[in-house]
Structures are given as structure tokens and as C-alpha cells.
């Protein structure tokens, strides 16, 4: 099994989490564009429309817009549908606040393009204490009998 790909960044909100990646080279507003109870993206025409971020590592450019971001993350967290971690290019202050309040690790300011290196379905370990992201490709997971299942 080949070595995981490593991306370095800034551990914005500390903590460690891992899970299947959900990736879009796009921004997302937690207000009005997601349902905190199902953990799904509901925004019409959004590249992640219909996808669930529950328990997954959400890789997007940044969150956008609303001051309700921490509130929606809190409701999602209480329902067990929050993302496992956030990997963003830019730090939106409201995503940072939402992650702090709800203990969700967040990494940003990356040294490589996450949209080239991480695809939806890859298995990602986010170590925000050290600012390190380790990516195991889904193809490797499928080939390896000992690998994690990339299923939902």
C-alpha cells in the first residue's frame, strides 16, 4: 500500500479527526445551503447538492456568508451530523468560531492544492494540532484488503 499524501497547513482549530473526504472547489454557506438535521447540502446547483458531510472531512475553499454558521454547526453537532473536520483554503471567521465552539478541528493555509490531491471518497486524517493532513487515495483503499472502506 503506497504512502499517504501529506499536505501541510495551519492548524486553525486544534484537534484530530479522520474520515472520508467530501470535496468541492467551491464555497458553502451553512445558513440556507445545508440541513443541520440530515447533514446534507441543500443548495440548488451547488456541486455538493444532495451530499452529506456528516462525519466526513469537508474540503472546500471556505465557508461564506452567514452569521448563523456556528448555530447550524451546533445543531448538526447535537444531532451527530457535523463534519469530522474542515479543510479550507481561507479562514472564514465564522467557520473558525463554529469549529471552536463545537470542537471541530480545522486546517487552512495549505502548502499544496487540496483540490488536486484530495478527491471525494479518499480517506483523510486531519491533525490540526500539528497542521498536517494525510490523504489515502480511494483507489488504494479499494485495492488493499486491509484498507478502510470508503463507503458512506
Amino acid at each position, binding site marked *: 500500500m503506497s504512502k499517504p499524501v501529506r499536505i501541510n497547513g495551519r492548524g486553525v482549530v486544534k484537534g484530530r479527526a479522520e474520515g472520508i473526504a467530501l470535496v468541492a472547489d467551491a464555497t458553502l454557506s451553512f445558513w440556507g445551503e445545508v440541513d443541520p438535521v440530515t447533514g446534507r447540502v441543500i443548495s440548488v446547483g451547488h456541486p455538493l447538492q444532495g451530499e452529506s458531510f456528516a462525519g466526513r472531512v469537508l474540503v472546500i475553499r471556505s465557508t*461564506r456568508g*452567514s*452569521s448563523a454558521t*456556528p448555530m447550524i454547526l451546533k*445543531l448538526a453537532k447535537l*444531532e451527530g451530523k457535523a463534519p469530522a473536520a474542515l479543510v479550507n483554503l481561507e479562514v*472564514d471567521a465564522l467557520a473558525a468560531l463554529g469549529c*471552536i465552539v463545537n470542537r471541530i478541528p480545522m486546517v487552512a493555509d495549505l502548502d499544496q492544492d487540496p483540490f488536486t490531491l484530495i478527491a471525494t471518497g479518499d480517506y483523510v486524517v486531519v491533525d490540526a494540532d500539528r497542521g498536517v493532513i494525510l490523504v489515502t487515495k480511494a483507489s488504494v483503499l479499494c485495492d488493499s484488503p486491509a484498507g478502510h472502506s470508503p463507503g458512506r
Partner: protein
Amino acid sequence: MDLTKEQQDILEGSRGEFLAQCMRWLVEWGEVMRARRLVAVDNTHVLLPVPNLMARGASRTTMERYVAELREACRHPTHPRCYCTVHTAFVTLDDLDVPENDPEQVQAQRELVGLAVASGFIPTFTCAPYLVGNVPLRGEVCAWTESSAVVYANSILGARTTRHGTESAIAASLLGWVPEFGVLLDENRKGSLRIEVTAALDSPTDWGALGYFAGRIAGLGIPVFNGVRRPSQDEAKQLCAALATSGGVTMCHIAGVTPEAPSPGAAFREEVPTDFTVFSDTSLRETYQLLRNPTGDEIDSVILGCPHASIREIAQIAALLKGRKVAEGVSLWINAARATKASADFMGYTAIIEAAGGRILCDTCPTNMRVPARRIVTDGFKQAHYARGMLGAEVIVAQTEPCIRAALHGRWIGNE
């Protein structure tokens, strides 16, 4: 971050566990955002809503735990220096005969209002606090939730607020401090992209189109608009709301209008970028088309007052509705702050609107409440953008007059 002795003591529990928690939120947030200290805050606008259908299908435990924290927040007095107002709720406290206004949630919200008032919050329940008395002065440090109001405070009033969330705004209200980062600092208020406006902007909704266009390209940046006249208050409201909808914008500059930007040069601190984007009449038309996706003409909802309507907008709507009737099967909603509705009641506008079959909805909006709608006409870009996903509705964004015409005819008949 450098903390004073008093701040450090609070962090260590000198004023109890909840205020220590509040201080931890502010300090940790400040460190993440690279603030070096906490600064005094004069003015807050906080979120205190019970979740209602925002959390449709959530467990009872989730709802109770969420509200329990808001109750705890309202057990502490607000800081004596702070003017603290309250954002919209997800229910109306007025009687409203729709199942979405869940009586149990309304009761929980009423109880919260009682606690909030006792602790010093002013329950304005609006997304546009600047329309109902909370008008910070130039340079005033604020901690506001509601991203559209944040853009308005920074860009139109020259006040200073980053975009806040529930916990940070509550902590600021009770402790009287905020971490100093982002647009609280001079160097972060500089324009980052230049937009030359050649389009003729004739209405608040046209200004909303400009904001929606600019937010899409601005991301988290600070757009500078050049070539536009001074907007009216209603036009500025639409511009700011749309900027914070399609983008993560915290402030913009309107050259000649924003207090600290008498010229484009001032907005860019004399480093005016040579490249710019043009907002032309074609861009204006194309931006409207982004939020017009009907598969038919018949409509069931007209939603005005996003952000909450001013008394002047309500007067205009009443004039258009006087002596007429909204079509059968169409709901005409005009969202407004309670204080604005009190003026509308006093001036006779509410009676005219209700006689025509419309209603003024206080404290919230139909989208917040999740009132079902299949095809919506609205004069707010923000409303149109979010209603698609939140209500699963088709939307048509248009100026106020054609919205009212659609309400009277029960179908979208175009702009003319």
C-alpha cells in the same frame, strides 16, 4: 493574546463558569484570527432564536440543549456600556394561523424574551437593526450577527464590526470585549477589488443585483464601487444584503459615500488597482436572470422585506395595494421589525395592506419559519437565493412594483 488581569481572572472563573466559557470563546477565536488583544465593544446584535423548523426533525434533546444555552446566556446582565439588540427569530410572537408557527416553540421564545429583557437585551427581532434605532456611529466598535447588517454597519455607517456568530455576540454583550482582528483594524479595511459601475441603477433591487454580482467575485474580499451615485437607505440595504449572500463580504466601499472613502483612492489607501471589473447594463440584466428560474407563470407567494422593510418601503407597498386585492391563493408577506409595524399600524398602512389581503410579518420571515412555497416572487436577492434551497421553491427576483403586480394577478407577468 495579551490579556489584562481582569480578563485573565474571568477566564479562570472569577465570575462563574458561563462567563469563563464566554471568555474562552473570545480568546480562542481571537488567537485563531491572530488578534493581539481584546478591545471594548459598545454595541451588539445577537442571535437568540429557538430553533423551530430550522431543525426540522431534530430530536427533543437537541432542541432542549440548544435553548438551554440561550437561557443560560440570558441569566447574566449585559455589559452596562453595550447597546444590545436582538436578531430575528424563527417564529413570530404575533398570532399567526400557520402550522409552522409551532405554539410550543413560540412559548419557548416568549420565555426567552422575558429573560433577555431582564438581562438588558432589546428584543428588536430584526435583521436590520439600523432601521429601528441601533445606528452605531463612525468608528463605534460593534459585535453584530447578521452578515447583511454587518456590511451595512461597516460600509454605510463607518462603524466597525467583524461578522459574529451566536456565541461571540453573546460573549461580547455580557463581557463588553471583542477580539481585535479583521475590519476592526485600519489596515484590514482597505479595498481589495475595484468595480466600475456603468449600469443605470433605478431601484433597491437593482442595487441588490450589483451586490449579488460583486459578492460572487469578491469572496472574502472588500469590493470598492466607483461610478455610482449615493444610494438611498433602502438601496444600501439591498446592496449590503446581496454582497453577504453571494460572497463572504464583511464590508465594501462606495466611493464618495462610505465615510472613510471620499474617493476610490482613499478606499484603496492610494494603491488603486489598474485592473477592474465593469458592472454594465448587460451585467445587471444577467444578474437578475441568475435568480429567475420559474417553469411557469402562476405564483403562490410574494415576499417583500428582506432584509426587513423600512417604514418608507411599507408606505410604498401600501400605496400600490390601496383599494386592490391580492389574488386568491397568493400569500403576500411583508417582513418588518415590530417597531416598524407599530409605525405602520399608527399610520394606517397595516390596515390598507391587510384589507388587500397581505400581511406584515414581525420578528422573522417566511423563509426562516419554513412556510411552504412553490413559486416565489421577491424584491430581495438574498431572499431569492436562500428560498431556493431552504424552501425548495422556484424564485423570481424583481423590483417591488412588478412583485406587487404579480401578487394582484396571481402570476408573473414580467416587469412592464
